[in-house]
Every structure is written in structure tokens, then in C-alpha cells.
């Protein structure tokens, strides 16, 4: 898999601090799975040596993909300043991605429960695209209503949407895991599957709920990375079989695999 200088087609701020970047890359667009990520060199400055992992947010067509990112530090700040027409050095797609129901029939029968904490929504849109055949119930949590992203896109895909905000400015007031907890009592499908992405604390709560309700659950982790391709062992998290690499063995893991006690 070669490294590529990838053309930026667009890079716009969609809400304060959140950017949507459109990239032109047939290679990536045609060879990526939901849950995979790009490892991006945000700057050539030596105080920003390492790449930054960002999920494939959407595959727009066979040439074009999108990433959705929040500016949290130097790397994402540099990225936010890139202009249309510039190129960026990306490795990827990397990582294992979510495991999807295999057959159309299974997809049809399965109820997909998406849980996104903040920017955790990023990979779940691509996932929803691939699961268009399924019934999707999406739980979107954020600090405040401005940070509830992609509700429109999900609605267009006929998803049922539940929103929570910590400040109560939209939907349920509180954590998205609590919202899910309440709803799980009423939802009642034998063929559910949970896909979750967000902060570690949230994932842990979701994992507990999934265990309690015996719903299979896949979680996508964030971890500060070195190489992104499995050579340096910088990005590990604790699983029941010891440390595993988020970049290569993940970023998506079965919730059951994770040693939640030690995280």
C-alpha cells in the first residue's frame, strides 16, 4: 500500500471548531471499510512530527471521501488551516473497521444501534451508509446542542434519532449512555447490534449495558498513536488477552474483548 499525497477538495467549518474535509482519492474511496482511518501528516514542522488518525467519515462516490474532525490541539489546528487545492500526506485506510452483518438478509433483520459521543459520530456515518438496508437507531450525545452533528444525514437515511446533551440544550439532559439505558428497556429486538464510538468512559458504560442486555457490541477506540500501522506498539489498550494495538488490531474491538476494569 503506497503513501499518497492527497488533494483537498474542500475544508470547511461546519460548526464552531468542527471541520469537514473533502478529499479526492479513488484508491481510498474504493478500498475502505467503515471504522477505518487515515493517518495524516498535518504539518512538516518538527514540533508536530507524528501523524494524526482520523476516521473515514463518508464515502461520497468512487473518487471522493470525507473526514469530519474537531480542532483539539496543534495537529487538528494545522489541518483546519489547509486550503482547497493543497495536498496532504495520508497513509491509509488503516485498521480493521466494524464487523457488519454478512448477508443482505442479516442486514435486513438486524436493528443497528449507533451510539456516538461527540466527535465519535465521525465513523458512524460511513457505517450507516453501508447499513442502509437495516433499521438504524442512533443515539447522539454531546456537551451542547451545537455539537450534535450529522442528525440531518441520519434522518435522511431514515434512522430513528435520540439526542442527549450534557447541558440539556437539546433532547435528553445528561449522558448519552444514560439515555441509551432508558431506551434499551423499551427497545426489544432479538437481532440488535450496538456500534459505539466516543470517549473511553462512555464506551465503558455502553459495554456494561450491552452485556446486561446481551446485545453484541463493537466499540471504536481513540488512543494517541505513533506509527498507525502496527510497528511501534504505542497505541495499545488492555484486552482480556493482554495489550492490543488500537491501530492494527483495532480501532474497533468487540466490547467483550476489552478489559474494562483496567481502562
Amino acid at each position, binding site marked *: 500500500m503506497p503513501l499518497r499525497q492527497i488533494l483537498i477538495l474542500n475544508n470547511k467549518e461546519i460548526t464552531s471548531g468542527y471541520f469537514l474535509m473533502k478529499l479526492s482519492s479513488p484508491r481510498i474511496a474504493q478500498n475502505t471499510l467503515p471504522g477505518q482511518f487515515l493517518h495524516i501528516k498535518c504539518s512538516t514542522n518538527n514540533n508536530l*512530527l507524528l501523524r494524526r488518525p482520523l476516521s473515514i467519515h463518508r464515502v461520497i462516490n468512487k473518487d471522493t471521501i470525507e473526514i469530519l474532525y474537531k480542532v483539539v490541539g496543534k495537529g487538528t489546528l494545522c489541518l483546519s488551516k489547509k486550503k482547497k487545492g493543497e495536498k496532504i500526506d495520508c497513509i491509509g485506510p488503516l485498521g480493521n473497521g466494524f464487523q457488519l452483518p454478512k448477508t443482505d438478509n442479516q442486514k435486513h433483520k438486524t436493528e443497528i444501534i449507533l451510539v456516538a459521543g461527540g466527535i465519535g459520530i465521525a465513523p458512524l456515518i460511513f457505517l450507516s451508509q453501508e447499513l442502509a438496508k437495516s433499521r438504524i437507531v442512533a443515539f447522539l450525545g454531546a456537551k451542547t446542542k451545537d455539537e450534535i452533528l450529522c442528525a440531518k444525514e441520519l434522518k435522511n437515511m431514515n434512522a430513528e434519532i435520540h439526542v442527549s446533551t450534557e447541558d440539556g440544550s437539546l433532547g435528553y439532559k445528561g449522558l448519552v449512555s444514560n439515555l441509551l439505558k432508558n431506551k434499551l428497556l423499551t427497545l426489544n429486538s432479538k437481532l440488535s447490534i450496538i456500534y459505539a464510538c466516543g470517549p473511553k468512559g462512555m464506551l465503558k458504560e455502553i459495554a456494561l449495558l450491552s452485556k446486561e442486555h446481551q446485545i453484541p457490541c463493537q466499540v471504536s477506540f481513540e488512543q494517541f498513536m505513533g506509527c498507525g500501522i502496527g510497528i511501534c506498539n504505542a497505541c495499545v489498550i488492555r484486552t482480556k488477552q*493482554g495489550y492490543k494495538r488500537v491501530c492494527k488490531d483495532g480501532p474497533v474491538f468487540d466490547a467483550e474483548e476489552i478489559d474494562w476494569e483496567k481502562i
Partner: protein
Amino acid sequence: MKPDISVKLCSIKLQNPIILASGTCGFGEEIAKFLNLNKVGALITKTITLKPKEGNPPPRIAEVEGGIINSIGLENPGIKSFVKDKLPFLRKLKIPFFVSISGETEDEFAELAKILDKEKNISAIELNLSCPNLKQGKNLFGQDPKITYETIKKVKEVTSIPIIAKLTPQVKDITEIALACHKANCDIISLINTIPAMVIDLRTGKPFLGGISGGLSGPAIKTVALKMVYDVAKVVDTPIIGCGGIMNGKDAVEFILAGASAVSVGTANLISPDSAQKTTEEIENYLIQRKINSVKKLIGKSLD
């Protein structure tokens, strides 16, 4: 006319001076998807210990001014699994590969070397001397000339595979250690490993890394490493692998001028897994521009 960029490390011939440094290319398999390994000079495996090691708690890497700090903690599957699961891939390569080992005692180093001695195709064994000697409290093997000497001696007794001593910069005087290597008939000296360093997370007020401190690598350490290579080259004629912050061909040439016969690149691999290839091309271009027909002519030239 293309210049000759092949070099020799004792009896080992490398097609070019660029070696992938220990811990920054795994056991070759993953990086092979991004880099044609058969085009690099050589590869050094991640350090192997007798028993599997699970390493330090995350976060294991921090990005700092001009470098990174890692506290991987020698995570590795242990020698048994290495021989069974990792060696077969390495054996298929057309380039020399060196196996890095680390023990908790001198005897453990020898034990590891003995096991590797039975395996075919290993071009050299690199002794990672930047690890604590459990018999000597918190001292590292490579911090004491005597222990360095004895460790190498013991290893050489059990194997005829060439031995590389990889030195730690955390010493009073690197030439003392290099002289001990020389006296022990060490075949190659590799330097430097990372420099102990740490980061405090201002949001929490606590050390950022799971392992509290780690090792600094990358551009920030280049000039420190260069000085050590230069100093060592002045006192011993053992071939040297220079290492520390080499990000491009110019950096590599500086180390070669300082006395290194080959160089290893670490951090650069993490940033771009194909950086070895670019670095090699840049060395070639440097030689072409200066009309120098062989890289060997540059080795140690700054010392004249």
C-alpha cells in the same frame, strides 16, 4: 554514473548504509506493506527478551519539541515466539537482519544468544545495553564499562554470530564504554539509544506517560548523538552504526562524516514508513552532486 553506496559492517555487506532501528520496524511484516524491505541496508528487530513482556501502561508516546518520547517498555512476545512466529518472515528477506536482545543479567544475554546461534540467516545480534541490570540495582548494562565488557564476552563465548553493542547515551563518558566494547572484541558498536526524558501534562499536573518517563528520540537528539559517534570514532576502529534523529540524507551524511559506517533510522520510520527509501536516495544525490563515487570515502572524514 551512479555512486557506490554499499558499505561493510565487519564482515556484513550492506547494499546501502540505511538500517531500520530496533523497535521502529517491528519484525518487518507490517512495515513491508509500505516499504520494499529488500531495498534497505538492513533491519534490526524489536528487542526480544527471554520471557514475553507486556510493556508499560499507555499512553506510551508523547510528541515534544523536535522529537517524541516513548515508553513502550520493551513489549515483545519473548524469544520462543520470536523464533517460531517472526523469524520465518525475516529469513525470506534478501537483506541482512539483526536481532536485538536484552536480558536482566549477563547470563540471560548469553542464554538468548545461544538460542539464536542455532538459527540460520541471522547476520548479527544487537545487544540492547540500555536496560537495567537487575544484579546492579537500577544501573543499565551500558553504563558500566566492566559490565559492558563482561556481557559482550559472555555472549561471544556462546555464538559466532557477529555482535553489535547498542549503547545508551546516559553515561559519564561514552568513550569509556566504547573502549570496553573494543576490548571485548565486539564486532560493531551502535549508538545512541534514546535519552531519558519526560513530559508533564499541564491539565492534570502529572506525568503524561503511563510509564512516567520515557526515551527521547528524533531531531532533538541528533547533535548529541553525532557528538557521541564522533567521540567514539576517535578512540576505536570498531565499525559504528550511527543513530539518533536521522530524518534525511543530510543527517545521515553528517553521521557518516563523524565516523559511522552505517546509520539506523528510528523515529523517521514511525512518521513515514518509507522514509528509509527517501533517505537512501538523498545520500545518493548528495554523492552525485559532490561527484563522490563511493559513500565509503565519507566515513570518518570529519576526523581527519
